[in-house]
């Protein structure tokens, strides 16, 4: 018996989102993911000064703003053949890396975690740890006063196999939940020290950065980073590994949340000036063939709008040719998100994709040893592992920064004329996955600006061949018992979709 199910709105994702499901015998058969807001960044950037783009595109997403600024600058630098000084490269890497850490922590604790905890069990904690007792007391106060917001949840299904009910674990996790806020704030302080402020940084300009950090500033960053890395090692990574190999192992080994197995990464963090060597490598994987990493060809990226509320008649288009115009009455369309495809395939992007393409041994060992499928839990584990690796890389970049300053390199900016006409492509990664800005400039003004964001890849709608996007595919097969849609949320939140990001517009 086929049933139609609609969940709208879905919360604890960034931006308004809707999902429609076809359910048969409590299993999802088909899913449609809908992005429900649009602002028209590509249109409002038209005819603007190109130097504004790194500031304005940050507001596409208030979370991965650093990646947008980075990619926007690098697009303009490619267009005008600007070479960035060494100090600027290291500062940019550090700022973007710190921005990733802040959000990786937030994503697991504030967005994902509550789907797996039965918070009513908190009060049954009987241990003697004073910290945990304080949490217990706090939570009991909220419960007693019948004011359990924002933790109140209507989904209390005693037969849900993936809910953790052990009071000891639940209270430990809630302790981490509150600690995570503080850790996230600390990582943003690194962004602020080198980027001006957070959220929304101001120091990235096409050609470099606006200031040369003092030794004091860098040492302050190192000290903050040390504390953050301790949190990542002792709390974040420890929590994830404990859950993934313990109470959530059955979920990790299930097929819930598996997408097509196509992965894509644009590569991120230049490791040396004027070299193509990157910390995360660009590459593509098809159909889950993890040992076969293929080269990335930009010309194979195209966007479809058959299911999106935009005018178009020629099907696939490359982002350079694409323009943006709404058509809210379009027949068959159901989302503001466009459908980017690589060689016609929907591709999953994000930490999991990056680590698989990097052939990260820690992740592969974890997956092989515990027979973990590349679904919900694998995505969460990949993000935590990646946070740890980036944290360590940040240390080395700060160290390099000190060395270059000691060697007397104080140039932070390459003066150049942003005039005339040019075309540039900025490629990089945000923590959610591959991010690209395509910019064309005519007579010193932006003629066309197109972004393909990570969530456009992950949460893309169906294309002309009817192939669903990675998130839509991942939802297929998820069990949805009566009145308990938690599995749907678990799959969706493992992708960390960002709707304001995803949505972008063409003519």
């Amino acid at each position, binding site marked *: 018996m086929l049933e139609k199910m609609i969940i709208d*709105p879905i919360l604890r994702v960034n931006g308004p989102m809707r999902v429609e499901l076809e359910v048969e015998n409590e299993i999802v058969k088909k899913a449609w993911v809908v992005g429900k807001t649009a*602002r028209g960044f590509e249109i409002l950037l038209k005819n603007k000064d190109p130097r504004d783009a790194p500031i304005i595109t940050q507001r596409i997403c208030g979370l991965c703003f650093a990646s947008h600024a980075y990619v926007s600058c690098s697009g303009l630098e490619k267009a005008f053949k600007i070479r960035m000084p060494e100090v600027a490269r290291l500062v940019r890497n550090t700022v973007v890396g710190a921005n990733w850490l802040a959000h990786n922590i937030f994503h697991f604790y504030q967005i994902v975690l509550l789907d797996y905890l039965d918070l009513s069990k908190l009060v049954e904690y009987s241990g003697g740890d004073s910290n945990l007792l304080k949490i217990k007391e706090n939570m009991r106060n909220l419960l007693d006063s019948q004011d359990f917001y924002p933790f109140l949840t209507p989904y209390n299904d005693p037969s849900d196999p993936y809910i953790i009910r052990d009071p000891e674990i639940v209270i430990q996790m809630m302790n981490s939940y509150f600690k995570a806020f503080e850790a996230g704030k600390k990582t943003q302080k690194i962004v*602020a020290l080198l980027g001006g402020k957070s959220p*929304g940084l*101001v120091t990235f300009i096409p050609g470099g950065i606006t200031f040369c950090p003092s030794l004091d500033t860098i040492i302050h960053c190192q000290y903050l980073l040390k504390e953050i890395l301790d949190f990542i090692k002792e709390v974040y990574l420890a929590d994830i590994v404990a859950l993934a190999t313990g109470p959530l192992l059955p979920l990790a080994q299930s097929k819930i949340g598996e997408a097509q197995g196509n992965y894509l990464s644009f590569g991120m963090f230049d490791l040396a000036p004027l070299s193509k060597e990157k910390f995360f490598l660009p590459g593509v994987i098809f159909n889950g063939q993890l040992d076969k990493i293929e080269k990335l060809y930009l010309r194979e990226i195209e966007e479809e709008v058959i299911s999106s509320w935009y005018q178009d008649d020629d099907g696939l288009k490359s982002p350079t040719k694409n323009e943006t115009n709404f058509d809210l009455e379009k027949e068959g369309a159901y989302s503001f998100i466009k459908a980017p495809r690589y060689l016609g395939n929907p591709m999953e992007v994000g930490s999991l994709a990056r680590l698989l393409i990097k052939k990260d041994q820690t992740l592969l060992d974890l997956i092989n040893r515990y027979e973990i499928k590349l679904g919900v839990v694998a995505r969460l584990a990949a993000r935590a592992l990646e946070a740890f690796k980036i944290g360590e890389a940040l240390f080395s970049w700060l160290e390099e920064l000190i060395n270059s300053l000691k060697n007397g390199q104080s140039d932070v900016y390459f003066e150049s004329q942003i005039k005339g006409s040019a075309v540039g492509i900025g490629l990089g990664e945000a923590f959610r996955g591959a991010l690209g800005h395509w910019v064309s400039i005519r007579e010193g003004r932006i003629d066309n600006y197109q972004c393909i964001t990570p969530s456009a890849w992950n949460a893309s709608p169906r294309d002309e061949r009817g192939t669903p996007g990675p998130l839509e595919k991942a939802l297929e097969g998820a069990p949805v018992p009566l009145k308990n849609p938690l599995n749907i949320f678990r799959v969706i939140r493992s992708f960390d979709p960002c709707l304001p990001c995803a949505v972008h517009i063409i003519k």
Partner: protein
Amino acid sequence: MVNFKKKLTFLTRRDFLKFCSTLAVMFCFSELSFSDIALALEKAIKKPPVIWLSGQSCGGCTFSFFNSTNPSISEIILDLLSIRFLSQLTSDAGEDAFKIFTQTREKVKEKYYLLIDGSIPLNGKYCSFGELNGREIFLIDLVKEVAREAKAILAVGTCASYGGIPKSGPTRAEGVQEILDKKVINIPGCPPHPDWIVGTLVNLFLVGSVELDFYQRPKLFYSSLVHQSCPRRSLFEEGKFLTDWNNSRQKDWCLLLKGCKGIATSSDCPARGWNDNLNWCIKANAPCAGCTEPRFYKDFSPLYEEISGIPIPFFKRIGVSTDSIGEVVAGAGGVGLGIHFIRRVLKKRLKNKGKR
């Protein structure tokens, strides 16, 4: 309901007083002594309920709010606010999410605070909220509905206040005050400083109202121009303007020629600083983009070009009394004159610099 007195049994008296004193210092309640705050908070029987709706937002405003330091976001959740709805934290979904609004309204009539971030498109389809009984609910309609019985309405961020960046886009995005006929307190900024948000809220709880300027911003935080209290003001007076970011001699020079909008922007950034006063735009050698102003972004573009003339303020605001109009005219005139004067002086100085 959290009874603050009851809470004191485990939150020691000392902790509680410390919590109150940080609040007092942070939000500069000159007129309120710190014991008043403690008393008021203790008297409060329950945590004030808050509903936070998001329009065409990037999420930056909520993430800035989470950066609050004194009180921290954990303290806010546990002790200060009953956050009924905030899309990044709330656990409900679908029709259950709608129930929060009706429940809040029924239980705490006239007593909840409504916060909104992100602009509101007049064409509802560009920002839809959810589906109720098979009908699509646009955000614009939900905001109107929830606002009706809210005790106070706060527009958080420049988008919600005046339309912000999306206003220059094609979706007819507007600030909240354009769609409501109730008083709206604007807390602009792209994003706003967490102290501005939490400080305005706490001030509302304790005093019941906040004094607003012409653009409906709390005077507490937006009363002076960035230029007035800028640490580089003296360099401006000396006519030292940064022209080359690589030149270490020009390190702390005035950023006017690099497009700084500080002379037309009201905020207390120079004194407050960002992320626990670690840094802020001008300290990082980057020009102020003018993000707390109604004219941001459209009229401030290009951001890296020297500002040229300031448009005369637009006198169409809801809830402006005749008194405040007088004040505003005087204020706006002052700004206009100031800019004119500054430009004249500046031109002269640049000339002098050329001679030297």
